[in-house]
């Protein structure tokens, strides 16, 4: 498997599991953490059905710009969006580390999010989660909150808002 330097950095240095906060016993949000442009993003596990390797994405001419196309998930056609585009980042080619996170927004809505790489599942203590304070009005729509946890900043994605 070939890693770009950036990705290798992320995997090797930034994200070593640290035990310092394990004494915290309060409620926590279990999140899948993934990487986009070297930042860590998290989505609550309860919203995620599965994480898939990238297979053939069939393009749908005429669809919105952020839609990469559709994939076949065991007989169900699922739309795949480019998460980079959703966060106003430049598009990037699919690599071996790229994954599609299948999100169940609600019973009828299932969406795949293409991300640079998926890192791990982590319980983020709720007392570490705080709303994003920003002066930029339009940027925060897809972001629910941020968490400062174990020396990392985790950006929690608001998938309900993102796909409503």
């Amino acid at each position, binding site marked *: 498997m070939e890693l770009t330097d950036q990705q290798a950095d992320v995997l090797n240095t930034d994200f070593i599991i640290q035990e310092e906060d394990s004494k915290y016993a309060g409620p926590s949000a279990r999140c899948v953490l993934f990487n986009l442009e070297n930042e860590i993003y998290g989505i609550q596990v309860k919203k995620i059905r599965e994480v898939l390797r990238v297979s*053939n994405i*069939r*393009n*749908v*001419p*005429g*669809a*919105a710009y952020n*839609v990469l196309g*559709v*994939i*076949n998930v065991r*007989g*169900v*056609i*699922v*739309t*795949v*969006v480019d998460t980079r585009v959703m966060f106003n980042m430049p598009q990037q080619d699919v690599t071996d580390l790229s994954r599609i996170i299948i999100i169940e*927004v609600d019973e*009828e*809505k*299932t*969406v795949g999010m293409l991300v640079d790489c998926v890192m791990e599942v982590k319980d983020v203590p709720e007392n570490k989660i705080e709303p994003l304070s920003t002066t930029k009005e339009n940027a925060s729509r897809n972001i629910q909150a941020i968490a400062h946890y174990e020396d990392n900043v985790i950006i929690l994605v608001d998938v309900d808002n993102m*796909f409503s």
Partner: protein
Amino acid sequence: MDEEILQDFLVEASELVDQLDEQLVDLEHSPTDGDLLNAVFRGFHTIKGGAGFLGVTPLIEVCHRAENVFDKIRNGDVEYDAQVADVILRAFDVISDLIEQLNDGEREFPENDPALLNELDAIFKGTAVAPEPETAPVEAASEPQSENVSEQLHLADGVDPDGDMTDDEFEALLNQRDGVQDPSSSPKGLQLDPGADPDGDMTDDEFEALLDQRDSLGDQPAASNPNGLSLAPGADPDGDMTDDEFDALLDQRDLTQLAEAQEDTPPTIPEPIVVEKAAPEPAPQQPAAKPKAQPKSTAAKKAPAKANAESTVRVDTKRLDDIMNLVGELVLVRNRLLTLRGNSSDIEDISNAVGNLDHVTTDLQASVMKTRMQPVKKVFGRFPRVVRDLARKLGKDIELELLGEETDLDKNLVEALADPLVHLVRNSVDHGVEMPDEREANGKPRKGTVILGAEQEGDHILLSITDDGKGMDPDVLRRKAVEKGMMDEVAANQLDDKSAFELIMSAGFSTADQISDISGRGVGMDVVKNMITKLNGSIDINSVLGEGTRISIKVPLTLAILPTLMVAFEKDSYAIPLTSVQEIFDFDINNTNKIDGMMMVRLRERSIPLYFLSEWLNPQSDKTDSKGDKVVIVSVGNQRVGLVVDQVNGQEEVVIKPLGTGLKDVGGYAGATITGNGNIALILDLPGVVDRFQ
């Protein structure tokens, strides 16, 4: 309200409503059909039973009265004529509305329109001969004690019908009973106090009261007894009460209690149920037999397997067994393949297993498809009523014949076809069939006929609406088209008759000089056409002036499987519904013209617009050479267009899957499918494609 019971009730009630809808109209043709009358009576009774359980008072009130009326009718006391039918049908509409509201989650209902209740009561009491039904109830209410109408025991006003009966009240009733009984020649019946709990056990007092009543009535066994609780005339008044008699009384008591669900009706509130009219036959079980004849299960069993709630299907267990069996086979084949994978045995074994797999999956697919199939009767069932009401309103005499009601088709189609068919049938009744006098003048029978038929034709269903009315005049249609500015005179005159008939399906084309509120606003036929096209179906119109019109609709058996033509641009494949494909030929630039900025291809003296699909589907293509391209001629609505594609890959039957989230608004696609090699192909929606290019 218990939601689970409610849901059960709704499914059952909706089925009963569907049946009643049909039966009530049938009844007008054969008003003395005993089986039919019993079935209708049972239908109302069963709905009432369920409503009583759920405490939906307005529903109970109406059902109860309808049931009363039908009891009279089946006993021959009242004739089911058009006037009675109108009232009953109105009551039926109220019932079906209430059930629909329940289905929509409504739990509080306004009180019933007292006029309707009174009309029903009036029919029941035999006073509703008046053509002005508004006045009838007043009469009925004002003379409840008239000679012909039997007296009834009733409670004093203001008595709480739900409270326990006080001794005084009971005494009062007993006195009334005695008073009524002695001098008069008019019959009266046993009656329980209205406060009695119909579900509770009978108390000793109630029982005693009934026994007393029985004994006293027993002295005049021959008295006609149209009202009140009664025992069979032949019952031995002094003997012990038999179980049958006791049951009969219990039944009567339950029914009676329901009668006083209404509060603001005139003094005749506790309206007793007629169980038996003066009957010479001394069969003691007779009175009980009738009300007891409608337990829930009987009615439910009689109901054909059809579902009502949009999201559920009732499936014959036989079909499920078939599926289970096939799934079992599938598991066996899988096991065999797994074994074969382990010990890489010879090709023949594997190919046998795969062959087996092929068979099992094909059969399984067919079986699962069948679970979605429903008889077309579900759509047809509503038409007798539609035609009856419309014909009555227009003063026409029309008979509707239904053919091939048992034909099965996909549930989605059943639902999707309902509206277009209603429109077409209304058209036939309104515009097709002439007024009786006109028909007679033209040497036709006064009674017009509309035939609604369904039959399976290969993998299609053919639906037809045929009337023996006045037919359509192609010349009138041509003239209209010119008047409406749809085409010039020359073009109009060139249309053959068939094309002229098809004009009626163009938007904004209406030939009715007078617009009625029934049809003929010119919004109809083009909508019908679009709906049918959306179902991958086609419409064909045939008409002979003076003899009638036949409109045929052809739709695929199922919406789930679609025969398609696979086309491709580089490696992306697309599926075009095969029903729309007319012909395919090689693209030849020499055979095209650019007319008004649009490429057209010449085909047998016609120019057909060409849409280069690659402009939309493959815009980045650097392909400049149109060599090897194909033109696929498709029909969309009333027009033909040519689609230019890179390759044609042959036919494939595909399973339609919805496009993913957020893509349903992207025009031009009907869905997606997975092809034999596991890739995704997008299914083109031709009307959408045309919109995209216009």
